[in-house]
């Protein structure tokens, strides 16, 4: 008889969810609660290819086990890790860096798509700022007048998720200072409305306002 406390999903899905915690910053409970875990695992396998996904997954498992985190992944695996995280946060599979798309020898078009209508609704990004998906889970009349709660701090996030000292960044020497967020981690202007979110350029460095005569 199976353990009644374990989730009613395959071992693959359990493993997928467990190791998506350090990617997404959300607990296993939160990830299961989306109802999308199995669908996302299928999507990633399909998009990356089963063999390449297995290689990626082995690399990520090792990176978590040895404490290296994302920065110890190869560039192509790093891009896959980003895509998996993007999927959980937005419900959409992103457009990959063309170099990664080529290296993975992917057959599907390198285009962003929403996995399913309910995937959009279950995006985690909304919860990062105490929001709700636009067009779903409405909080009620007048709730938009209320001051949003403060940000949770990084220490308690790490503790709650049981993630210890793993560095959760690549190509950056330290945690991002929130009062001086660099432009390369922010979106810039979408030149046209058809540009999908994963292809929006980063912001130029903090714009020069000197042209303005104060």
């Amino acid at each position, binding site marked *: 008889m199976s353990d009644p406390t374990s989730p009613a999903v395959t071992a693959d899905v359990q493993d997928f969810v467990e190791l998506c915690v350090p990617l997404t910053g959300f607990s296993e409970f939160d990830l299961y609660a989306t109802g999308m875990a199995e669908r996302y695992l299928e999507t990633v396998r399909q998009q990356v290819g089963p063999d390449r996904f297995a290689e990626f997954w082995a690399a990520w498992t090792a990176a978590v086990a040895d404490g290296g985190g994302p920065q110890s992944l190869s560039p192509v695996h790093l891009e896959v890790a980003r895509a998996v995280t993007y999927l959980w946060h937005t419900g959409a599979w992103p457009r*990959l860096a063309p170099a990664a798309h080529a290296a993975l020898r992917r057959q599907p078009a390198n285009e962003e798509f929403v996995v399913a209508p309910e995937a959009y*609704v279950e995006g985690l990004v909304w919860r*990062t700022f105490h929001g709700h998906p636009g067009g779903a889970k*409405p*909080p009620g*009349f007048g709730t938009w007048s209320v*001051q949003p709660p403060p*940000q949770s701090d990084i220490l308690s996030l790490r503790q709650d998720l049981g993630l210890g000292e793993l560095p*959760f960044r690549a190509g950056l020497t330290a945690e991002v200072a929130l009062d001086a*967020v660099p432009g390369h981690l922010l979106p810039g202007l979408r030149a046209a409305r058809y540009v999908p979110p994963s292809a929006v350029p980063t912001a130029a460095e903090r714009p020069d306002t000197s042209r303005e005569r104060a």
Partner: protein
Amino acid sequence: MTGTVGADEAVRRRYDVVVVGGGWAGSLLAKDLGERGWQVLVLEAGNGGAETWPGYLDSLSTFYSAVAKVPNSGYRRSVAAPFPDVLDLAPVRDPEPGEREYTANGYFVQNGRLPYGTDYLRELGGAAMHWLGAVPRMHPEDFATNERFGYGRDWPITAADLQPWYARAEFEIGVAGDAQGQRELGVVTDPDYVFPMHQIPASWIDRYCTGLDGTPILDEVADEQYPLKVHSLPQARNSTPNPDYRPGPYRPSSAVGLPNYGERCVGNASCVPICPVQAKSHPLRQQARFPRTVTTATRCVVTRVRLAGPTMGGRVSGVEFRAYTDPASPVGRSYVVEAGVVVLAAHAIENARLLLFSGLANGSDQVGRNLMDHPTVLNWALADERRGPVGPFRGPGHTSGWEVFRFGEGRRRRAPFRIEIGNWGWGWATGAPMSNVATALGVGGDRQGEIRPDGVFGPELRRLLGSTIGRQLQLQIAVEQSANPGNRVTLDRRHRDATGNLRPVLTYDLDPHTRSGVYAARLVAARIFQRLDATDWTNHAPRDGVPPLGHFTHTVDGTTLDLAYSGAGHGAGTHVMGSSPRDSVVDAFQRTWEHPNLYAVGCGSMPSIGTSNPTLTMLALALRSAEQIHQDLVLDRRPADVRPADEAEVPA
């Protein structure tokens, strides 16, 4: 009456009125005339479906699945009745100096210096299915900008003439607002008036901005200091009924197809493109209340207005239309339907297209000219980190604005503008919050397509997103564009849609007065962000050789700025109203000067659009036209054509 009929059934009768277009203006006007007992036929080019609850949920699901959640993303494209989409425009990389910086690849053919960045929707309910629901009245100044400030075209009527019609329109569509605030602005003049519903509550972002009340902001183009004050925006959105409303009590309308649902806004924060509970007003509500005298037929594309015989004094006899069954296939049958009065209510651009193709009403050569919109300049910033999150992506798209730049002598120097305090973060400008996830992770590669080295994950990602999304401020500033005969819709036999109808050819630009308004708006927004201690991330300069859509540079007093505008969806001016047939298409009742029983209603009649979202003014005008059509019909039918009392109510 909810429900539509097919073309075969629709053409069986002769009608008193045929209305071309089942959007806002056509629906209000048809309901009004139907209630007076006239036999009315509404011909809608697009498909129906959203008037049933399962059909409406299908639109919601279509929106969820869309990667680009643009205004038309809840609605399927149609081959048989095509319509423009904001996705149709693309920027040109590394344009030569003086070359156009965009291409248009959709329904519109565009050959203007700048892109016309506005869409609409051919579907039962029209573009009102994706509108925001902002319904400010126009200011008395807006009706006489030429006389008062020396630019634009003046109206043959005044704001005072429209006040009772505004109030009626506000009842018909259900408006929530703060009448006292609107009186302060001078747009509501009745000292006792209240809106049917109390104002939609201000957002936390509005309150955050209210901290600047009383702060003077320099507009250097107008050369004037403007003291800020946040004003609540009247909205066609269900709120708490106001017990002081007369005649009361006011009961909010519920969703079409699901009674007692949607009687309050619940904060879905997706008014554009779709309100999941239908707390946002839309024309299907009017259609659900159509009396039996009104017949609605969908998938009927009107192709031509027919002139009655040469001895008929310019009167029209009815319309020709093509009916199709499958929106994906341009196959259909032709029909003719006759009516005592023909009303074009198909959108400013579609009305002009029909008049031009029919060769009617154009003695003034003004049909299709004076095409307008509200060029909208987006400004985005991150609020002060020390003061914490501001709560973006909550509530209706915008609930308040800074109104002081709309009025006064500054209009001589630059176009006026209305600052919308956005509630939906950087969504419009940057595609946030999804694009925040992408750029924080570093997915998608660098500009050479290589894999980026930098990015954050896990708790650090969650913290960064919480902060950089949670502090997003965006000011959408709608600038008045005045009538310019060079901005126009024309037809060209070489450009047809799949069914052979001629597509609109648009020529569009912004004149220096409007450009100065965009310039001033951008600098004012920068000053406001400074006062809020916010970090201004606005940047409209070309990136890697790609100019953003609507990009231009403008110089004032030797200072040049890169600027860009978006379309606001406010197409207007194309069958302009005036006091003389020499220089206008319709009279003050939106009746074409040359054809006494042909009306062209909608924003196309407006000689100016001020800085107000134009729907409410359009609806006030439509109700006023309905009254006039009723008078026309009564005159026309007396005494020869009195119908028996058992067939129709006697017109009131």
